[in-house]
């Protein structure tokens, strides 16, 4: 689980010590974080506030972060999807003299208002990339997700970064993420001097994480699909932050899968956390869930059920070799941590 290495030499700064990656950065770098209300953005902002080598940083969002004790932060209110947003963004970047852009403003959840979701994901990313291109930023870090590979019976057991992205995803949620990735991938050609890092996180679990998966797992009766028990992969939110820190403070080009150690079948995870499963017949589940989704009774549209049925496990070897990132918690431990926090929350609410 954790490395026993307090005795490891202090010289190897890259090895994850007990406090994780120290995050010493070039002081001339000016970091701009886009998206203050996603789990990754929120955690990164808190880290930057604590990090002593960062003197100030900028945050772009529609609403200011809820925490008011952020001394080093400068908040810029900007709508990513307003007309002419790219020009405004470029102007702001010019004024700040920004060098590093961290793009976390992507949806955690599928949304019934898919037009707005599409605008935010794809057009928002497009505006950001074109602004980044215009002012010639040094680095562009994009937080994506492993859902871009799509879930299918034809996936290999471990999907590597070179695997093609889902070609015809059914769900808008996945389609938007794939489109956004394609926008960012254009930067490799259009701005070859820019360091473009794409982090594809698997499902982020933890006490604070809120996504379509945790919404389901917080229930005591969890619907599953009868006869299908896919292998699942989770990463704890602290491990996810660790990977994001490495990407922000060090230079790594290209896409990276950021995943937890090991795998666990969905049913095993549910059993270990004491949840009761409600198996549904596959052919009935899709239309039923779609109907419930349209009534906003569940957090998942019918087409996204593929992710509860087929394999979509990603390979973390590249991040381990190049970024020296290795998750400290395994998928099973991450899930149990989440379940523990969930249970505590429930008891505290009851009392």
């Amino acid at each position: 689980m954790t490395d026993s290495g307090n005795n490891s030499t202090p010289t190897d700064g890259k090895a994850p010590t007990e406090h994780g990656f120290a995050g010493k950065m070039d002081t001339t770098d000016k970091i701009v974080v886009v998206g203050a209300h996603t789990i990754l953005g929120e955690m990164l902002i808190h880290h930057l506030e604590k990090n002593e080598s960062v003197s100030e940083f900028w945050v772009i969002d529609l609403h200011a972060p809820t925490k008011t004790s952020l001394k080093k932060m400068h908040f810029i209110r900007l709508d990513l999807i307003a007309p002419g947003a790219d020009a405004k963004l470029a102007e702001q970047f010019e004024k700040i003299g920004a060098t590093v852009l961290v793009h976390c403003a992507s949806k955690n959840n599928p949304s019934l208002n898919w037009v707005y979701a599409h605008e935010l994901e794809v057009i928002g990313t497009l505006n950001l990339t074109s602004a980044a291109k215009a002012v010639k930023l040094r680095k562009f870090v994009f937080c994506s997700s492993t859902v871009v590979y799509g879930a299918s019976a034809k996936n290999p057991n471990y999907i590597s970064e070179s695997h093609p992205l889902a070609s015809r995803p059914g769900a808008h949620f996945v389609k938007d993420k794939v489109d956004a990735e394609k926008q960012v991938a254009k930067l490799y050609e259009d701005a070859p001097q820019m360091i473009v890092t794409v982090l594809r996180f698997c499902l982020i679990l933890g006490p604070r994480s809120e996504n379509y998966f945790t919404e389901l797992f917080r229930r005591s009766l969890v619907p599953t699909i009868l006869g299908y028990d896919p292998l699942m992969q989770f990463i704890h939110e602290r491990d996810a932050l660790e990977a994001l820190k490495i990407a922000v403070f060090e230079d790594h080009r290209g896409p990276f899968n950021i995943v937890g150690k090991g795998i666990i079948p969905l049913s095993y995870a549910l059993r270990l956390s004491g949840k009761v499963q409600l198996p549904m017949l596959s052919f009935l589940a899709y239309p039923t869930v779609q109907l419930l989704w349209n009534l906003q009774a569940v957090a998942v549209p019918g087409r996204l059920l593929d992710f509860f049925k087929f394999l979509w496990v990603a390979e973390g070897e590249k991040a381990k070799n190049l970024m020296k990132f290795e998750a400290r918690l395994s998928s099973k431990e991450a899930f149990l941590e989440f379940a523990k926090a969930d249970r505590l929350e429930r008891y505290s609410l009851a009392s």
Partner: protein
Amino acid sequence: MTTPHDKSKRRSALGSDPFLKVVREDETSVKPEIPVEVQAEAKTQAETDFENDPEFKATKKTLEDLGKELDEFHRDPKNYNRKKLEGLVKDFIFELKSLLADSGYFARIREAMTGDHMSWTGVIKGLRRFIQSDEVDDYGLDRQFEMAIKPFFDFLYYKYFRVEVSGIQNIPYGGRTLLVANHSGVIPMDAAMMKVAIFNEHPSKRDLRFLVDDFVFHFPFMGTIMNRIGGVRACPENAERLLNHDEIVSVFPEGIKGISKLFKDRYQLERFGRGGVIRLAMKTKSPITPVAVIGAEEIYPLIFKSHILARPLGLPFIPFTPLFPFLGPLGVIPLPTKWKIHFGDPIQFNQYTSNDLNDDILINRETENLRQCIQAMIKQGIEERQSVFGM
């Protein structure tokens, strides 16, 4: 589940104790004569011991009867009275049940259900604890589940198909190996039997990883069960990763065409894909061990297959055998043929470099050589056997 003592007795009685063979081959270089004699004596001793075993006698008698009936059925299928065959098959099911009861299988389940026996949740939790552990390995293999269903496959292996294994010493104790075998039987039991063979007969008890065709993962339960006993989807990425992690991987390059062979075409190898096997071996620098499985072609004598009926079900084909679908669910029971699995000498691919991967002609030639090699092994095996049912 049989006790270890019992198992060793049974193994040598079937004349296929690979461990003894391995030891013998190692020792031949030092003292060629004495160990052979000693072992021969030990073997006859064990054999006589074993043949006096009433359980064995009963099984043998049932099998002999069944063999005779099947022979009769083959001679004159039209005027055959099916009632008798059905009765014998029912006897077999009873035998399987009694075997499980004798081996303490049910006792183990009861043991696992410690604690609350009375409530339903207690019983369900206990059963789950018996068939599932808390963790799976990197590819989804669950040892607890594997062990829970192993007695059934052991029954098939030792009693039903009476598998005889030769050349097990060609499988290394460690390191990667690619097993390439002929594919047969409508329900591909050859993969399962190879897995059991390596687990039971090889001293290192290595796990065989087998690659499963895509369509299985579209079906409920099938894909999950296959995954929990160590099967992964058949694709180059998976095979490469497994071999790079020094596993034994079995490949059936004939694919679906292999298992859908008609009875008249039995043991005629189909085309070996598009050379993916050789490419895989070259890329990962792993030796190929050719495997011939004899006897698996006759378990379901396929007289007709329908692709049109299968399409709406998402299956590759629907088989018609003399027993299926006319006998209903009883038709799913395979015929008790006697099996022989021969592991051939490994073929090395170290001499090739990565440039040769693009040489299609070379790869095609190597693929054809491999096919010929396995075909020759099969031919030899068929010539050696006296009868299909081994009576």
